[in-house]
């Protein structure tokens, strides 16, 4: 009996040791790294681009590395030029842990959170306020720009979340279906459903996995046809409830 207890104890220890082993990590594949770069790309709006870039270059370097354009340059900009400025230049520093380390198999996942194209910077209060207070124009400019460039950069997707642009759901689906390459567009649909507390999504398994109690900023569901179709169907259903 004592012998059996001893063996059981040893096996228990071995099992504990096995549980403590971290999951195997491998270097991201080339396709994963390429997709990582793709999903972090910004779309550069064309509106007054040369003028805005010249003004950004003029911004005096500050030791705190935050770099807001001075009011005398910012205020006279047209709405379209301000849009360009905000899309290519975030004014304040991002937190130390905002930028995530490289992820493996990034191209095979649909994440709960979108890639952050701004990396070490975030929109300041005045930038967020501009986007929200001009949301109709912002949505129109994003549509116009995306139709021209055929893609929706990380900055545009972040702006849609910022302004709660749920009216854009059909356009987001249409953009996704052009090449079905940018899975962050599916993430964007889910964020809009989550932020607006769309009940059928809130009680779903996907929601629990991506935004539930044990989810973190790298939580994901597998990229496959079933998940893709389900997200698009749910988002369409949600859109149909808000347009009534």
């Amino acid at each position, binding site marked *: 009996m004592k012998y059996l207890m001893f063996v059981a104890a040893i096996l228990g220890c071995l099992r504990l040791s096995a*549980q*403590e*082993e*971290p999951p*195997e*990590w*491998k*270097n*991201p594949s080339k396709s994963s790294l390429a997709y990582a770069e793709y999903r972090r790309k910004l779309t550069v709006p064309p509106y007054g681009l040369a003028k805005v870039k010249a003004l950004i270059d003029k911004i005096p370097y*500050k*030791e*705190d*590395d*935050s770099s807001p354009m001075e009011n005398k340059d910012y205020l006279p900009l047209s709405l379209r030029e301000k849009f360009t400025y905000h899309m290519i230049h975030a004014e*304040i*520093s*991002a*937190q*130390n*842990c*905002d*930028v995530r*380390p*490289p992820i*493996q198999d990034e191209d095979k996942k649909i994440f709960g959170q979108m890639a952050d194209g701004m990396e*070490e*910077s*975030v929109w*300041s*209060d005045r930038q967020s306020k501009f986007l929200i207070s001009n949301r109709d124009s912002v949505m129109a400019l994003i549509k116009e720009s995306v139709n021209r460039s055929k893609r929706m950069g990380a900055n545009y997707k972040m702006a849609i979340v910022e302004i709660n642009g749920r009216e854009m759901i059909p356009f987001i689906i249409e953009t996704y279906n052009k090449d079905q390459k940018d899975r962050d567009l599916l993430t964007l649909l889910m964020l809009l459903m989550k932020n607006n507390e769309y009940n059928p999504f809130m009680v779903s398994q996907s929601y629990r996995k991506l935004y539930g*109690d*044990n*989810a*973190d*900023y790298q939580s994901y569901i597998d990229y496959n046809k079933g998940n893709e179709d389900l997200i698009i169907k749910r988002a369409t259903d949600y859109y149909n409830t808000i347009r009534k």
Partner: protein
Amino acid sequence: MSGFLTYCLQRFTPVLLLLAGVNAVNGQSQHFVHIPAGDYTLGKKGYINNPLRTVHTNGFDIAATELTNAEFEKFVQATGYVTDAERNKSGQVFTPGLREFRWLQDSTACWRYPNGISRGGIENKMNHPVATISYRDAIAYCEWAGVRLPTLDEWEIASRAGASTTYFWGNDMPPLSTYANIWHGRDHLQADSSDGYMYTAPVASFKPNPWGLYDIYGNVFEYCEGHLPTDKAGSRLVHARGGSWWCSKNACGFFNSVDIGSVKRGASFSNLGFRVVKK
């Protein structure tokens, strides 16, 4: 007899270490832990910014606690130093209700008012870690005090206390609340003081790691020296480790011995501080 000695050592060493830490804080002087020379296993397999490797150190002495407001005040009183947040009015603060990773720029925030004047000063928090300071401010303190920041590798050696796992106790997160002041809420929309502190805690409020270092995870992120493989050429980014009171398992999770954060060198967040190493 040797059994009795072993029992005493096991039973009372943590208490003695704890007392040493508390005395150091009350005495407003730094208590240092000697890290012996040797080869140490750092990083994690396949982790691009912190690959699994062996490094050698000739040994160093690292502060048992994060630098406190009291110690930083001595520096300011002696030199008249003005921090980046004070000069540029660019401190970044937190208040419950903000979305994940969102901070507020508050022109009144600085090390004396880490989350802005409206959220209170440090009068009764002199034994808390100094925060809302930039990397540049940390370096200025170090030059005055004749100490330095730990390198990324030194910080990791000290934090691991000989372990090769994600945390110094293993790979599972649960014991964290014993050792670290972190955020336990699901998000940051509601205040979380479930471990006794919403913002910083007095240094050495939680249990130390086996080598006697307090708050190596949580409380404030700690600035370190060094660069990451993914830093772009000429990057002015700096790095801090260990997670902070703001960090939760859902939104950051950097309270471990593997992850390394990146931040602009002039940024002054109320969850960024430092601990020092003897020169």
